[in-house]
C-alpha cells in the first residue's frame, strides 16, 4: 500500500537522532513489548508480513508513535482480527488498568 510506513524520500522529518551509548530499551514497557513478540508470534496466528502490514495500517497514528508502540498496535490489531482476543476484552483490560492507576 502507498501508506505511512513507506517514508523513503520524504522530507520534513528533521535529522536522524544518533544517541551516544543508546540503551537497548528506553522504557521498561518497551522491554515487555519486545518480550511479547515471540510468544505471540509462536501462536502461529499471523506471519511476519501480516505483522508489517498491521503496522502500516495504523495510518496517521504511525507518525506520532514510537517503534515499540507500532509493535503493540500490530499485536492488538492482529490478535483481535484473528479472533484470539475480543474488542470487549481489550477495553475491559484497559479499564481495569486505568482503575489500578487511578
Amino acid at each position, binding site marked *: *500500500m*502507498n501508506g505511512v510506513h*513507506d517514508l*523513503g*524520500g520524504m522530507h520534513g522529518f528533521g535529522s536522524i537522532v544518533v544517541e551516544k551509548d543508546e540503551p537497548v530499551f528506553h522504557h521498561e514497557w518497551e522491554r515487555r513489548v519486545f518480550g511479547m513478540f*515471540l*510468544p505471540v508470534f*509462536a*501462536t*502461529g496466528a499471523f*506471519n*511476519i*508480513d*501480516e505483522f*508489517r*502490514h498491521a503496522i*502500516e495500517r495504523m495510518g496517521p497514528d504511525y507518525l506520532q508513535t514510537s517503534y515499540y508502540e507500532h509493535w503493540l498496535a500490530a499485536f492488538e490489531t492482529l490478535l483481535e482480527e484473528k479472533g484470539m482476543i475480543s474488542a470487549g476484552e481489550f477495553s475491559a483490560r484497559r479499564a481495569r488498568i486505568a482503575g489500578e492507576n487511578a
Partner: protein
Amino acid sequence: MAINVTQAMAATLAGATARVEVSVTPRFQPGDRVRMRNLNPPSHTRLPRYIKGKVGVIERDHGVFVYPDTHAAGQGEKPQHVYVVRFTGKELWGPQGGANDELLVDVWDDYMDPAS
C-alpha cells in the same frame, strides 16, 4: 505450538529468516538492466514508492525468499529471487540527486521487468 524459555531465548538471539530452500530459476543476472514495475496495491508490498518506474542494474542475487505481497494476504509464500539493485541518485531524485550517490535496494523478482 508451545515453546519453552530455552527455545524462546535461542529464537530471540538467532532471529528468523524469510529465506526459502527451494530451487527457482533466476530471471536476472548481475549486470542486467531492470525497470521497477509501477505497482500500487492497497494491500502489503515491500516495493518502495521512490523506486517505482525507475531503472537500475542487478548488483547480485541474494537467493530465494518468501514474497511479502502474497504472504501478508494469506495467499502463500510464492518463493522467488531477491536481488540487490543499484540505482543512481540522479535516477531516483532527478536534479536533486547527488552526482556520486548510489542506492542499493533489495528487490523481489515480481517487482521488476527487463529494461531495454
